[in-house]
């Protein structure tokens, strides 16, 4: 199987992100219009400069028309993209390939989700007719399966492990408290999270991503033209996606302590980018912390921790703002909120700010002194049955 990547062929030259909120007063169209405007302003271009669009939404609308119509695009190609919660990153990946192919000069990837008009808490899947034997479990419950399995495999007391993942929420809330765009801007102590009533397994509401409305967008051009638009473009170093075959739910070898699709995309991306030691080569990582156990296991699957050591690295604060590899410096899904189709692009927005030195001073990281690359990890689905995206971006051409 070949996976050549498009390293240094394409760059992001502008980005925008709306606040992620319960936007009772804004429609999906409003959010898309705002994110689009912010991204184009950031790149210093106008609507007629854009050649093509990739629009990601999980289930807020359908077809390219639902972007072309509110933006009043003039005979432009718009492709609607959907790949579970990795939808936003997938839209960006398509836009990058389109520019790399030479088909277009300027492409925009935009993602948005309006989840708060539904009337129910949490995310609710669009019902597809089936034979009625499919699971109706919540995502929180599916991911909560990982904690007892991890505790069992590595011989860690379950209460201690519960505290470890609460520390992940504490870190992400700390970071989100320093982010104006984040949905939840209140710090909370792990000890308090541990006292909360469980909603799934031992996970409380504070172990789950916030559910918010929002939109984010990126402008993509070829690497050679990138500096026409900005002094500090973000060059693509790697783009990788795996859609899992669901074998984890069939094959007894899978033990719910790892996300193999995520490990596979990481390995592919590191090969594309030429990274051999992510822990020392990456300045930061934005990862898909849909639930706190997800971030724990990702530290191992992405190669930031040795297998079975993620929990102790978390306790040592290695992934904190001042740690040796800051993770989810913007607060992550946990604190920033999770408008599904926008989340992947929101992760890139933080990488955009951090690598360019534009993050607010309260959440600046020190790893940038010696490193210039960042990783974005975005997933969709469940343990055993998952879509995973890993992208790597850098400020310098290799």
């Amino acid at each position, binding site marked *: 199987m070949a996976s050549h990547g498009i390293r240094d062929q394409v760059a992001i030259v502008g980005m925008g992100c709306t606040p992620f909120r319960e936007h009772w007063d804004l429609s999906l169209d409003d959010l898309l219009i705002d994110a689009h405007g912010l991204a184009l302003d950031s790149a210093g271009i106008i609507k007629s400069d854009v050649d093509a669009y990739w629009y990601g939404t999980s289930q807020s609308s359908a077809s390219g028309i639902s972007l072309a119509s509110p933006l009043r695009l003039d005979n432009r190609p718009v492709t609607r993209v959907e790949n579970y919660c990795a939808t936003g990153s997938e839209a960006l990946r398509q836009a990058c390939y389109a520019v790399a192919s030479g088909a277009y000069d300027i492409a925009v990837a935009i993602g948005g989700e309006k989840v708060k008009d539904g009337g129910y808490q949490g995310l609710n899947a669009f019902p*597809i007719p089936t034979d009625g034997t499919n699971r109706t479990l919540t995502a929180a419950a599916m991911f909560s399966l990982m904690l*007892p399995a991890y505790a069992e495999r590595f011989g860690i007391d379950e209460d201690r492990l519960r505290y470890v993942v609460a520390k992940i929420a504490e870190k992400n809330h700390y970071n989100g408290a320093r982010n104006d765009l984040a949905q939840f801007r209140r710090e909370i102590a792990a000890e308090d999270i541990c006292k909360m009533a469980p909603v799934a397994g031992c996970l409380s509401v504070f172990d789950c991503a916030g559910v918010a409305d929002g939109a984010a967008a990126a402008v993509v051009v070829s690497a050679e033209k990138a500096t026409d638009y900005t002094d500090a473009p973000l060059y693509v170093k790697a783009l990788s996606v795996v859609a899992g075959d669901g074998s984890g739910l069939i094959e007894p070898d899978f033990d719910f302590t790892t996300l193999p699709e995520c490990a596979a995309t990481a390995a592919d991306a590191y090969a594309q980018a030429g990274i051999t030691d992510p822990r020392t080569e990456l300045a930061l990582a934005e990862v898909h912390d849909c639930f706190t156990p997800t971030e724990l296991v990702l530290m191992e699957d992405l190669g930031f921790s040795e297998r079975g050591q993620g929990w102790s690295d978390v306790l040592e604060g290695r992934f904190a703002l001042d740690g040796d590899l800051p993770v989810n410096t913007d607060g992550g899904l946990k604190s920033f909120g999770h408008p599904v189709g926008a989340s992947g692009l929101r992760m890139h927005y933080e990488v955009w700010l951090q690598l360019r030195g534009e993050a607010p001073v309260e959440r600046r990281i020190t790893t940038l002194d010696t490193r210039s690359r960042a990783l974005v990890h975005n997933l969709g689905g469940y343990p055993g049955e998952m879509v995973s995206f890993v992208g790597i971006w850098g400020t310098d051409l290799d």
Partner: protein
Amino acid sequence: MRTTKGILAYGTHVPYRRLDRAEIAAVMGTPSGRGYRSVASFDEDTTTMGVEAARRALGSTAALPPDALWFSTVAPAYLDKTNATAIHAALRLDASVSALDFGGAQRSAVGALRTALTTPGRTLVVSSDVRVSLPTGPEDGGGGDAAAAILTGSSTDGPLLAEYLGGATTTAEFTDRWRIPGSNHSHTWEDRFGEQAYSPLVRQAWADALVAAGLTVDDVSVAVVTGLHDRATRKTAAGLGVAVADDLAATIGNTGAAQPALLLADVLDSAKANDVVALVALADGCEVLLFRITAELRVGRPTRSVATQIDNRADVSYTRYLAWRGLLNVQPPNRPKPARPSSPAALRRSDWKHGFVGSIDRSTGITHLPPSRVGISGGTVDNMDPIPMANAVGTVVTFTVDHLAYSQSPPTVFAVVDFDGGGRMPIELTDVDPDAVLIGGRVEMTFRRLFTTDGLHNYFWKARPIRG
């Protein structure tokens, strides 16, 4: 001439939950009752309980499979549509096996059994009931939920556990108990009337049956006497002049349409060769059936006796019981209700949905649940054999308790189960207390109703801890 028809196999299902009758008194302020009633779980109905009883019957015999399935209940999951067909599908019976409902009245259950014993062929007679009345009404504490299945046939079909010696019937029209279709409770006339009406009918049927079988009262070892009219049943039982079997009123209650076959099964669980067992059922008249136990019974019993199932139990609170039966309206979870299953998809996948049949890859030997055309781990396309998994047992690999998912009785307990001999399934657990689930726990499969949407019941399988 001695008949060669009889019982080839039998099986029963007593639900796991019990209601302590003292709880009714505590909640409602009524005089305290004693003992327990059995309670169908929120995910059980007469059809699912019928499946469980029928599986145990067929699983305990090497006799030829039935060529007819007769299902009797007064609490059908559906009208218009046959309920026996879901049992037929869960048992994976051939399309040429007829499946019929005998509905409407209590009497249909024992009538179906007698008809099966007096007509040719192998018939699986299943009876099932969920007894409901208004809170503090007679079935509230006195009723019980259960199912029983009896495979009838002749000695040429397989070893008979009990020979049918003959019987008799009497019929009369009198209204001591009645219910308008759609109502959730029955009305009864004053107690003493029923006793008067039943007495001569029982006497006549009893005498006629003994003559038909060529027996005297002294030949009868034990009588199983059933009926919804407590007083008439007790009084006439005492007048038969033979030992009367336990009616299980103290431990599970009166299980209505299931009671004749269930109490008969309880007697068969401990009867000895050559015992003569009488089944006397009071229902709009009286049915009497006489059996002689054979030496085959000792080795032909189902692995799980009625007594074992009575012992394996956990209590349900009265308020939760009322909510399960729809007698107490509780706030549903604030989640969208699951979409109704697609009938075409359910038909295409009936082997999976109803029969829990997966597929096993001929090249890799990997079991796929649900069945798959393409194998994982390098398997080829359309190179699979069906593999029935309903009787497989497995081990809990990991589990969770979901307080958010839509459920008729939150929380949902969900586990990843690895089956002995291969195969994995993330699946809901039932008949389990969330605090008692452990990694490594052993589970078996059970046919349940996942939910009902738009009046459409969604049947599928769950796992439950192995007990007894």
